[in-house]
């Protein structure tokens, strides 16, 4: 017979080990670098990184935002040790939210977007990293969402925004949760916050469809004196770089500074096998020659 007593479970909120011998059961957690007292809602010692966060009391827990942020090790609020800031927003138990701005700008998708509930759930639970290279971030986006965009033959789009890391001169880039658009257009929104700045936009072109020019940016035209917008004109108008992941698995970038379109030579973005310009999968053909005639020792 299997028996289980909750009182034997050693770990508490945020997965940290309880230290019941000091202040009684469930009243002290060991966060590695510091000891946390849940009754006070504070750490018992000064944050070793408090110099980098002068706006916080050195005893604070999870940046004083315990509802949507967790403290990783009692040291820092959001960041992983390698500085790449892997963040998740959703129902995952590995919830580690990176920025206020990501939460503010990432609207939860509803099932009314015209895709299956499973796909909606996947998007809502997808993680948005914060990376120091915008191109790497765009590649991550393409790897994560191009397959679904192809399957649903709908355009997906996100805004790329930059944030300056606290105590650092470096910018890190992240993206908003993708919006699901129509077969040939999509829209994405970004609400300006104090910590983040609009930096780019990325969208996908859905699946291969011979009725559409899918493997390139749409270009603006002036027609009869009227300006007809395209992808690139929107990037120029907003002063940002633009990216598109296409059905053939390419990742194209409109480089605003040089005013040119560059193929980033992505090889890891999912593609639509129906497309004539998609990479062809190598098919290994095994030829079975059989075992041949049995040797009988007799001449033919």
């Amino acid at each position, binding site marked *: 017979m299997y028996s289980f007593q909750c009182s034997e479970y050693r770990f508490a909120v945020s997965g940290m080990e309880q230290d019941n011998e000091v202040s009684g059961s469930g009243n002290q957690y060991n966060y590695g670098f510091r000891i946390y007292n849940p009754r006070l809602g504070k750490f018992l010692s000064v944050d070793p990184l408090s110099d980098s966060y002068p706006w916080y009391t050195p005893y604070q827990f999870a940046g004083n935002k315990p509802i949507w942020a967790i403290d990783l090790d009692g040291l820092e609020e959001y960041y992983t040790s390698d500085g790449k800031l892997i963040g998740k927003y959703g129902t995952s138990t590995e919830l580690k939210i990176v920025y206020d701005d990501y939460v503010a700008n990432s609207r939860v998708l509803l099932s009314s977007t015209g895709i299956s509930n499973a796909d909606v759930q996947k998007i809502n639970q997808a993680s948005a990293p914060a990376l120091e290279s915008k191109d790497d971030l765009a590649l991550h986006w393409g790897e994560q969402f191009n397959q679904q965009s192809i399957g649903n033959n709908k*355009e997906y789009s996100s805004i790329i925004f930059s944030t300056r890391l606290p105590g650092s001169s470096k910018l890190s880039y992240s993206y908003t949760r993708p919006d699901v658009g129509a077969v040939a257009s999509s829209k994405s929104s*970004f609400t*300006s916050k104090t910590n983040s700045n609009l930096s780019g936009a990325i969208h996908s072109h859905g699946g291969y469809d011979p009725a559409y020019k899918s493997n390139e940016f749409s*270009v603006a035209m002036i027609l009869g004196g009227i300006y007809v917008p395209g992808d690139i004109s*929107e990037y120029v108008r907003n002063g940002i770089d633009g990216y598109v992941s296409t059905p053939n698995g390419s990742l194209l970038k409109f480089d605003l500074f040089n005013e040119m379109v560059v193929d980033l030579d992505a090889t890891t973005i999912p593609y639509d096998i129906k497309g004539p310009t998609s990479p062809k999968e190598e098919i290994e053909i095994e030829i079975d020659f059989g075992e041949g005639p049995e040797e009988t020792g007799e001449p033919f």
Partner: protein
Amino acid sequence: MFNKIRELIFFIALAFCSCNSVYTVKKATRIAEKKWVEKYDQSILEFKPYNIALLGDSIWMVTGSLPPSGWNINQQGDSTLTIITGGVPVIKIRKNDGAIIENYHTR
């Protein structure tokens, strides 16, 4: 009398020759819509208003349009940018005979 008959024949011939010609914006638009619905579906008609130009006095070019991107400020004072990316249907129709030269959709 002979001149009158010649004139009549000329106008009848002109009428026959120009029955497929596209001389007006209205006719060019009608052809564009018909071809787009045939190739795509009724939802293509949402790309109004159309932009129409006569290129080199010989080819009509008709395109759809997208709603503009832009900033909005809500009651709390937050400014939100909405960027709309995407494509429109494009068709090129020869003025003389109404032949379709190109009919595609950007993305």
